[in-house]
């Protein structure tokens, strides 16, 4: 019984979020645009997340390399280490880990911010002050997350590869140029492009879910906390679902 009601809830919510997304495309993208607020949000969302993304990316590249090495050594192909790590980072681990970190940091802060604005009537107050809150708050944030996550992913990938280089270097001294030439020669456009494009959708999901949860926040500290929390949970799940869909799609299109 509870499984039925839970899946009903889930479907309900999916429907509402789709409607929210529809509103974004039908209303949010119409002029006049809130350009100044968009730039502010890009700064807050992109620039402020960079240190965290950089740090986690670096550690991930380093650890991944150290973990992979013994297996490669046992097959006697440790010279392929940069290629293996490079493909793993660029195609899958970089985008997904960056997106999850992003969901944790940005999804929750959007959910909490808009949630508390909602319950203290600041959103109504904007409406009264001649500002469409959907354009001013939602559209700017969703566009900013969709634009910033791909950029953060590319930067994160680069730092991650640098971490991998350090990881390779711990056991066998390698020339940094030689390392990166080896990585880049093994990568083709069909590795890089789909991986970057999917992060646009990841970013869109994080922004949209955060805003949706905030706009539908219930009263009280608990309500706001719940919006922040469920924004992170739902957008993280969505990131994996989208990842699954994109891998199928790129397979179908023969991009692998």
């Amino acid at each position, binding site marked *: 019984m509870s499984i039925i009601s839970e899946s009903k809830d889930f479907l309900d919510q999916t429907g509402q979020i789709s409607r929210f997304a529809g509103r974004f495309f039908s209303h949010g993208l119409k002029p006049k645009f809130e350009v100044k607020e968009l730039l502010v949000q890009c700064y807050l969302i992109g620039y402020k997340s960079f240190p965290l993304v950089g740090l986690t990316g670096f550690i991930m590249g380093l650890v991944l390399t150290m973990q992979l090495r013994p297996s490669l050594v046992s097959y006697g192909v440790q010279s392929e280490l940069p290629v293996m790590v490079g493909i793993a980072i660029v195609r899958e681990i970089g985008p997904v880990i960056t997106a999850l970190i992003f969901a944790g940091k940005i999804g929750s802060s959007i959910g909490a911010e808009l949630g508390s604005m909602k319950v203290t009537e600041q959103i109504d*107050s904007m409406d009264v*002050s*001649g500002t469409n809150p959907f354009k001013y708050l939602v559209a700017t944030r969703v566009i900013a997350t969709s634009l910033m996550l791909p950029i953060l992913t590319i930067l994160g990938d680069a730092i991650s590869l640098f971490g991998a280089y350090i990881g390779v270097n711990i056991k066998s001294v390698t020339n940094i140029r030689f390392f990166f030439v080896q990585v880049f020669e093994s990568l083709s456009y069909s590795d890089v492009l789909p991986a970057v494009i999917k992060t646009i959708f990841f970013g869109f999901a994080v922004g949209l879910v955060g805003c949706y949860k905030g706009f539908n926040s219930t009263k009280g500290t608990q309500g706001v906390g719940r919006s922040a929390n469920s924004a992170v949970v739902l957008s993280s799940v969505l990131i994996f679902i989208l990842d699954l869909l994109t891998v199928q799609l790129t397979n179908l299109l023969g991009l692998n």
Partner: protein
Amino acid sequence: MDMDKEITAVQPTQHHQPISEPVIVIENLYKKFGDNVILENFSLSVKREENVVVLGKSGAGKSVLIKCIIGLLKPDKGKILVFGEDITMMDEDELATARTKIGFLFQANALYDSMTVRENLEFPLRRHWTSLGEAEVDKMVKEALENVGLTHTSDMMPTELSGGMLKRIALARTLILKPEIILYDEPTTGLDPITAREIDQLILTLQKKYKTSSIIISHDMNCVRNIADRVVLLLEGMCYAQGTYETLEASSDPKINQFFK
């Protein structure tokens, strides 16, 4: 219901003579949330330069009423004419234009807590009147803060201010566009009697200065006595009775009487 007629028949004594043309006319308003009926056949009109106080129990629908007037909530049925134009029929742009003439003081202030006091005041100015220059904006912000006696707070954050100060800043933000109609949602609730009286005085002074018409929601009988030209009782979703403070106070209907004890 006889009572209603008897009381409305008495001409209210005005503090200042309003020009009789009404600025707000509400006709047969209905609003419900799910099965919860809030407003049922509510009608009211407000004349130019008149202060109408709306009394009613907590949860009676007073906030809902003025949110319908400003277009934040859509009524299920009925008309709301502001300067002769129906708010309920307006699209987003028309509504934005109409709202430049209507000030709205939120019950819980609704100041933007991510912005300084100055930015809070600038927000409606810059959003409604996009062509204003820096100097003009500066001047209007300064004037608005002077009106409420809080010029020194302009660079503070709302979280650094006390409850009464917040209320006054919210009032300044409401008044900064020099609206012709102001809707106050409980301007003095939760304040000490002295600050409350100051706010009452402020409302009266500013009302004289800018010649505004207002609807004021209040539980504070001192405030009602001080500023009401006319008192309206919102009961069971309707305009149950209206008249001057004195006539309603003298009423023998227990439903009216309970508010004046």
